[in-house]
């Protein structure tokens, strides 16, 4: 009886390896999960950032002095990396819902990825420059 049950479920349940990468966007659930995990990472950091904006001075000297502190520079990078990821994949989900046609969808999805990558690099380089040179 037990042997029969095992055999039966073998036919009904697809191995995880087969299910991964399927679905309409061909990414399975990995990206869905990554969007939520990045949201959880950003959440406390966003409140840290808004708190800092209230407390820091808004002129050049105060802002660079604030970012010159290693902890602030580190937290800023740790905020921006998941933020650009979350933002890019959020916009891509919207594109996948509303943009039709393979070519247009391909161009807009990769356009968002490219822009997001460029913005990430500019931000991180800027932060590191201020952090190390003041």
């Amino acid at each position, binding site marked *: 009886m037990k042997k029969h049950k095992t055999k039966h479920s073998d036919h009904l349940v697809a191995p995880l390896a087969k299910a991964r990468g399927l679905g309409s966007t061909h990414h399975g659930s990995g990206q869905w999960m990554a969007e*939520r995990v990045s*949201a*959880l990472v*950003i*959440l406390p950091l*966003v*409140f840290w950032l*808004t708190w800092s*904006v*209230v*407390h820091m001075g*808004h*002129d*050049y000297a105060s*802002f*660079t002095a604030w*970012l010159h502190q290693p902890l602030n520079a580190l937290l800023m990078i740790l905020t*921006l990396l998941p*933020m*650009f990821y979350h*933002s*890019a994949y*959020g*916009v891509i989900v*919207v594109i996948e819902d509303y943009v039709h046609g393979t070519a247009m969808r391909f161009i807009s999805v990769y356009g968002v990825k490219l822009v997001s990558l460029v*913005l990430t690099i*500019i*931000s991180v*380089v*800027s*932060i590191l*420059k*201020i952090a190390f040179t003041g």
Partner: protein
Amino acid sequence: MRERPLSPHLMIYRWTITMAMSILHRATGVALSIGTLMLVWMLAAAALGEDTFTQFADFAGSLTGQVLLFGWSVALFYHALNGLRHLAWDVGFGFEIKTAKMSGIVVLIATAVMTAILWCGILCK
């Protein structure tokens, strides 16, 4: 007697708070993504030197800049708080219509309160 709706009637519907907040979550998400440009501008301007940063600071302090930053902060708090609501749904909490409506109203009130606290903190200094 009031006319009753027929079953598949996709063009006739009444807005509900859950519906409006759902599309607003997307709208604020897209707006925030575009808003990251301002953040990048701020960082790059600061890295380039005092003159470029002052250009940014002047824009941020102008009426257009302040309106944009205000909208940015509303969108940020709304998206963050409503995102918490979505995360709760993702793990299976709060699906009852009454609960979903209540949590929506809580998010709207909390967004207003947090935006008020933030701008009080900035402007009352």
